[in-house]
């Protein structure tokens, strides 16, 4: 039974409860700090919900099992952290290429390699988009609270189903292990994948898209005899690895079904932007300190603004350009040595915005005071 109303939950638990509410009935994973509570809670909850929990032998197998389950018709999920996320990259590409809906949670910890297992980081922002080989687009969402972990897990499943794509839900050790009061509404909007019509069985082309660029997805065992080919394939599923036009057309469609829907997919949050001289840009756990710092600056009479990326990929170019049009300076605060910075600069440099950077690594997030100090320094520069 899904829970509702007021709840006091840990971030990782909220992900599990939301997944169940979204219809997830298959979870395969391999334990890793700081994501293990997702697997542990799934192990308790899945059998209660007539779902399946399985602890696989590694993360390669975990995402593999998720892909297999998705083709059996299930909404399926896995959860991991950096080292496991690295192991999943090849199959993320497979899920993209075979348009297999699934949700992958990456609870970020410090890296590279085993790094700091119990400490938070935001080092996977780029890997989440560029980790697999080849050219592709997918959706990456990064909440900043337990409430939002719940809401965005639902959204992650909805987007995965709607766009037939893997969706990566980024989390971090801080929001994953934090406990907060959240509210779960009685009714939720849940999206199911498009199915082919039984009467089309005889002439079904599994990879022929509808007008939205997305083909309906058959379920194994329903008699559609689909060929799910992870090599470059035509509308029937037959591979052809030498036809440049076919490859170009397929990859463009896979990318454009996401990029053309940016209006539906991309979510950001802004506050105090109308008159801001400087806007702090952040995401995930850091944004909580950023908002506090902006409020403190306002109390001191500094016209600071707050902008948060909720969707990390596809990147919020349009929203950021709008902010850039109304401010002179930005300050990017993040828990890595400069990943968000690079992307923000790419977007706002042509608008003459000066971008300052406040990186922090080592496991602890920025205090509001640290961000405030950077705001003050940036505002007073060149004056």
């Amino acid at each position: 039974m899904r829970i509702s109303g007021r709840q006091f939950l840990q971030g990782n638990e909220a992900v599990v409860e939301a997944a169940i509410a979204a219809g997830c009935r298959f979870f395969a994973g391999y334990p890793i700090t700081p994501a293990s509570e997702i697997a542990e809670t799934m192990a308790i909850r899945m059998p209660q919900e007539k779902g399946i929990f399985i602890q696989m032998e590694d993360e390669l197998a975990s995402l593999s099992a998720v892909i297999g389950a998705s083709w059996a018709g299930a909404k399926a999920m896995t959860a991991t952290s950096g080292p496991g996320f690295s192991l999943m990259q090849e199959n993320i590409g497979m899920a993209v290429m075979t348009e297999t809906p699934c949700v992958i949670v990456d609870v970020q910890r410090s890296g590279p390699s085993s790094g700091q297992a119990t400490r938070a980081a935001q080092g996977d922002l780029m890997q989440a988009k560029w980790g697999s080989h080849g050219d592709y687009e997918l959706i990456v969402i990064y909440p900043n609270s337990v409430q939002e972990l719940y809401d965005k897990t639902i959204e992650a499943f909805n987007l995965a189903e709607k766009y037939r794509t893997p969706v990566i839900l980024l989390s971090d050790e801080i929001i994953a292990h934090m406990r907060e009061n959240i509210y779960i509404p009685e009714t939720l909007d849940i999206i199911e994948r498009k199915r082919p019509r039984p009467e089309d069985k005889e002439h079904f082309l599994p990879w022929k898209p509808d007008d939205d660029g997305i083909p309906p997805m058959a379920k194994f065992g329903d008699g559609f005899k689909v060929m799910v080919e992870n090599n470059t394939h035509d509308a029937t599923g037959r591979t052809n690895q030498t036809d440049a036009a076919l490859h170009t057309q397929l990859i463009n469609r896979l990318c454009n079904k996401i990029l053309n829907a940016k209006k539906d997919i991309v979510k950001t949050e802004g506050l105090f932007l109308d008159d801001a001289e400087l806007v702090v840009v952040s995401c995930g756990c850091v944004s909580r300190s950023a908002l506090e710092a902006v409020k403190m600056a306002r109390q001191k009479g500094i016209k600071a603004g707050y902008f948060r990326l909720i969707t990390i990929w596809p990147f919020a170019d349009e929203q950021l350009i709008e902010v850039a049009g109304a401010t002179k300076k930005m300050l990017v605060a993040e828990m890595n040595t400069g990943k968000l910075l690079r992307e923000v600069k790419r977007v706002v440099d042509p608008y003459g915005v000066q971008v300052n950077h406040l990186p922090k690594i080592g496991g602890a997030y920025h205090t509001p005071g640290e961000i405030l100090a950077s705001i003050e320094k940036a505002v007073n520069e060149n004056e």
Partner: protein
Amino acid sequence: MSEVVRQHPAFKYMRKQFLPHIWCPGCGNGLILAAIIRAIDELGIDIDETSFVTGIGCWGLTGNYINADWLHTTHGRALPMATGLKLMNPKLKVFALTGDGDLAAIGGNHFIHAARRNVDLITICSNNMIFGRTGGQVAPTTPEGKYASTSPYGNIERPFDLCRLAEAAGATHVERWTVMHPVPLTKAIKKAIEHKGFSFIEVLSPCPVQYGRKNKFRNPSVLYNWVKEQSVSIKKAQDMSEQELEGKFIIGEFVKKENIPDLSAQLLKLQESFENKS
């Protein structure tokens, strides 16, 4: 194509438009495919109730030719993908078709765990003792001393015995045959389809183009004869010494255990325990 060929009884299970197949002349894979189709036909199974999950490699291409749902996985991942598929739809008869490199090199960990879990899968490994698809590199199944493009001075490593590995890992049905044993091979596949639990059928499948050429087998028939001559039935092997068995391929049924619940049955029992409570 003559009228006779077009009406071959196997065609009702095949994607005819994909023929002729891509395998080299003399490749053993077509004979395994024929045995799979014969087994399905003889049992009268509805092809829509089967699914094929294949790895990457020459044998992994088999999914092209069978007119059923097919998931072509990343290299080595056929078994975990088949596991997810089977667990979510236990009614499906799920075939996992995997080459020896796919199964025992890159996918080796998945192999022992799928066997341990007793997932109800029909796993058929085409063992050509080499990496065929990528041009004849050494495999974990290449016999000692044999040549491959990455063992140019002869293989200095010892090969896996895949059936003994499956047995030790907990597989509940294990058999080894060669493509020159079509009748017992078909029977083994039929048994695998009807078996509840992890079935592992290893088929020695000559690869004249890579393995044969690199190891001085003049033509396919010399290679086929060698594989046949090296094969010893499991019964006969019992009376042979270790020295006599050196380099031989033991064929036959290694394991057939009934009444060990498969993973789907265990999961269902767990789910039902909650139904009864509510």
